[in-house]
């Protein structure tokens, strides 16, 4: 599960961060789903996501691959995962997807109130919600909250806190600009929902106050 409901950060920051997932279901609409999913991904590309991965290629938007390679890799049962930094773009994409009526499950992960407004404006009636009831257990061993804003953007926890610390050090000391540092942080995320735009904003916000104890 892509864990996107547990993304952490301020409401303002989370308001510029919404994921869209495309899921065929085995035994229900899996066989013959390839062309439908390919069309959905084409529509998503038109909408301008800031990151995207399909399960049949597992290379994000910043890897040296073309859209044709991504689309060409899609076969029956492929899943697609993407993230938008602008809810207006996501809304336009959903309008097109609703019109295309391709019959594959679509899931949006974002602020509930925003998704509610968007769904009402588009004329969608959401079916199921997955609520995060928070982190339980030995929470004192978690990485600090400022780092979790980055690490929770990877659905499977592949972006390590140490890599975020390194990115902060590199930005703080001027060895790397925030954008390439963010694209580097995208690398380990195999589910394509690490939002490099939001990550860049966070690096710009945090680097000035981050204490560098080693290079």
């Amino acid at each position, binding site marked *: *599960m892509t*864990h*996107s*409901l*547990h993304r952490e950060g301020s*409401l303002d920051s989370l308001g510029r961060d919404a994921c869209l*997932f495309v*899921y*065929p*279901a*085995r035994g*229900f*609409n*899996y*066989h*013959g789903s390839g062309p439908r999913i390919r069309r959905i991904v084409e529509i998503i590309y038109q909408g301008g996501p800031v990151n995207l991965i399909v399960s049949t290629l*597992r290379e994000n938007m910043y890897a040296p691959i073309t859209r044709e390679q991504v689309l060409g890799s899609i076969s029956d049962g492929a899943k697609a995962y993407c993230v938008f930094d602008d809810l207006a773009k996501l809304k336009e994409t959903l309008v097109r*997807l*609703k019109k295309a009526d*391709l*019959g*594959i*499950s*679509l*899931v*949006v*992960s*974002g*602020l*509930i*109130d925003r*998704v*509610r407004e968007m769904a*009402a404006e588009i004329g969608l*009636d*959401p079916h*199921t*919600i*997955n*609520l*995060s*009831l*928070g*982190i*339980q*257990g030995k*929470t004192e061993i*978690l*990485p600090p909250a400022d780092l979790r804003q980055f690490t929770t953007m990877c659905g*499977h*926890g*592949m*972006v*390590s*806190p*140490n*890599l975020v*610390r390194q990115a902060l050090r590199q930005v703080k000391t001027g060895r790397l600009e925030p954008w390439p540092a963010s694209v580097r942080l995208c*690398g380990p995320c*195999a589910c394509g929902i690490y939002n490099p735009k939001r990550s860049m904003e966070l690096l710009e916000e945090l680097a000035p106050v981050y204490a560098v104890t080693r290079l």
Partner: protein
Amino acid sequence: MIIQREVCVGCGRCQPFCPAGAISFAGLKSEVDQDRCLECGTCLRVGVCPVGAIEEHPHVFDYPRAVRKFFSDPCAYHPSTGIAGRGTEESKTNDVTGRVGPSSVGLAIEVGRPTVGMKLSEVQKITRALARAGIKEIEANNPIHSMYADPETGDLKPELLGERVLSAIIELELPRDRLAYILSVVKEVAREVDSVFCLDCYLRLEPGLVIPAEVAGTITAAGFTWRPNAKINLGLGRVFEPEERP
């Protein structure tokens, strides 16, 4: 994962990429702590090694170590469900599968998340507590289902307990009137778990993306609140292959 000592040039570039913090210097070369390694493959997948010294452990697919990869590498497909990631679909396709109906609620207990990881013995603490509470059966289309040794007690297969994974999801479906009790059980067992877990609650919505008051009231009465962000199935899926429905 292993780092070939004779090839490694000791640049240390791979070390910050490891989500488990399992790579460190041993002398002048980087080395993987095999107990801490989750076999997630991140160090290899990102292609950070300038000399190609990183490779998969030769026994990565041997049982029981293989569970590390299946529960930690999002690109690996679980043999029991054929699903990548953590091998579950929970609410994602509920509009076509109908797994969680209008009078029930789903709970997902994501042990080890975010980023901390755990030994599977921590999962057993929770499955045992659930079994004591009468939950003898978890979602069948979930890889943890195949790891049960005894559903009556919640015991997992003993050979798996020492394996360390990034996360695993215990997934169950309940009648809504059982939610309060099970949340209290989860709250209690949270004190025993030597890791963290994320708690998810998924349910059918009322028209207009309204969370049913009955469930919302139960969650708050149990002392939990939900985050302002959530995963929302838009209800656009349809069934195309009725002959294959289980």
